[in-house]
């Protein structure tokens, strides 16, 4: 089997996802070619053919043009499978390519089992084993699902792709994530609040527990979206990635995007009323309890101990 890997590039830099794409081809026991809209100064570590279009001409974000370039490479290489990272770049571009190829798409693939692709359902509470009924297949791969077992050091054979045509979207540039605020990556203890805290006022008890443990408080996405705290405290794919000695998840169900931001923590305690919440997958301890009762009691005990 031959797989075309679609690498990612943003703000003049190659993104780290290409190593995970390569690991996927290892798991599929397939040969790989790669595609990148990027530049020659910043090539992925890859032992194979790399089709490279210049981002200065094609635009870093220009899905209609990237799609056309990909279709040219697919016509030349005839891969059976085209793999993207499941990212803001990948999930935007993949369906465009899939439709043009009459290919089916499996999104957010988390595993390969006996040659079949596994995708999550309902926030990873369930999963499905899938089979394509089209000649070609497009996949997007969940970040972190195909962690490389060894680092690759190789220079690809670069094939330049000329860029023609314009897109239907005008891309004006980037706005950086809100600067300032808290650098959670330095905290040894993080106590994090999720939707399960119920209301903004309850964030205070989470902050108090963090203070008792000389740590920082943080939040999952819904808490930030509701404006209960600011974005600099958000943990997850679209926030900060953290790895403290202790992470206490309060009322966090454990969406994949949140887990990706905290699963490298040394020790995880989850407090949740739902015993089956996906946070249990990464928690060393899951306390099944109403956090409004448990957190003040725990804070009190810690304060007494530290006094």
């Amino acid at each position: 089997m031959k797989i075309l890997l679609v690498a990612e590039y943003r703000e003049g830099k190659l993104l780290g996802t290409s190593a995970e794409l390569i690991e996927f081809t290892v798991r599929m026991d397939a040969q790989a070619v790669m595609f990148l809209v990027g530049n020659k100064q910043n090539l992925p570590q890859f032992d194979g053919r790399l089709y490279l279009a210049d981002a200065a001409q094609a635009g870093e974000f220009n899905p209609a043009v990237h799609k056309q370039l990909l279709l040219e490479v697919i016509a030349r290489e005839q891969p059976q499978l085209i793999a993207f990272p499941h990212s803001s770049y990948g999930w935007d571009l993949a369906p465009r390519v899939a439709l043009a190829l009459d290919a089916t798409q499996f999104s957010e693939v988390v595993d390969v089992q006996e040659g079949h692709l596994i995708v999550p359902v309902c926030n990873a509470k369930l999963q499905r084993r899938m089979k394509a009924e089209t000649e070609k297949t497009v996949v997007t791969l969940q970040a972190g699902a195909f962690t490389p077992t060894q680092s690759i050091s190789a220079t690809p054979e670069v094939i330049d792709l000329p860029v023609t045509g314009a897109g239907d979207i005008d891309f004006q540039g980037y706005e950086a994530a809100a600067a300032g605020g808290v650098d959670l990556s330095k905290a040894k203890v993080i106590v994090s609040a999720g939707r399960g805290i119920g209301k903004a006022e309850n964030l205070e008890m989470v902050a108090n527990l963090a203070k008792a443990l000389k740590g920082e408080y943080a939040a999952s996405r819904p808490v930030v979206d509701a404006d209960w705290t600011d974005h600099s405290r958000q943990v997850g794919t679209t926030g900060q990635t953290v790895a403290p000695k202790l992470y206490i998840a309060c009322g966090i169900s454990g969406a994949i995007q949140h887990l990706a931001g905290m699963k490298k923590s040394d020790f995880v305690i989850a407090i949740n009323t739902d015993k089956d919440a996906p946070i249990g997958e990464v928690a060393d301890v899951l306390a099944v309890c109403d956090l409004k009762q448990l957190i003040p009691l725990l804070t009190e005990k810690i304060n007494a101990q530290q006094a």
Partner: protein
Amino acid sequence: MNILVCIKQIPDMESRFKIDAAGTWYDQADLAWRMNEYDEFAVEQAVQLKEQLGDADLTVLSIGPDRTKEMIKKALAMGADRGVQVADDHSHLHDPHTIASLIATFARQHQFDLIFAGMQSQDRGSAQVGVLVAEMLGIPSLTTLVEFSYTDGTISAKRELEGGARALVSCTAPALVTCQLGLNTPRYPTLPNIMKAKKKELLTIPVGDLNPADPQQKTISMAFPEKRGSGLILEGDASELAERLMRILKEKTTVLV
């Protein structure tokens, strides 16, 4: 201006799921159903646009069985003018391409200037349907939006990227946009608006009338993921749990000094 919002009914994600008899999907019985969270942002943004423009007509469309109507009524109470249920008891079995083909057929018949959709559903999470509809219609699509504005036929928006950065993008209508969480604050329908919504038009179209595309993929089986975590589960009353957590903090971590 003619606006379409695509919405989906999904089970509450906190539900205790069971696998159905065929072994390929979750059992639909005994679940609490609600509007896909991403779609609430789509409805809200469309209603805000209608309020901005004054002269706009807003249709919401959903594909699903009879219970779907309850959710469509919520969108009507939020401010949509008309609801369309594509009646289909097997909608949960369709792949994203088939679902997109139905919406595209409907959209071709009504010439919408702007189509709103959630960036993904909470159950399938494919993030494909919106983009596929736009590609089928040959119109531009902007995905994963956390900011949206519309002036004189131009959509200016911000796409959310990894790490919280944003990409500034724009395109001209007709177009499709997919909405990310946090795009706005979806309103709660008020009682007078719930009453008004009862009088709004709610059409039902049989799914067969919209030329569903053939399936492109098959689910071999559905299963619960293997529990990788060997985590300890603590149950009991709060004071007992606080005691046990203290012991665990002392024994297993170095955070208490």
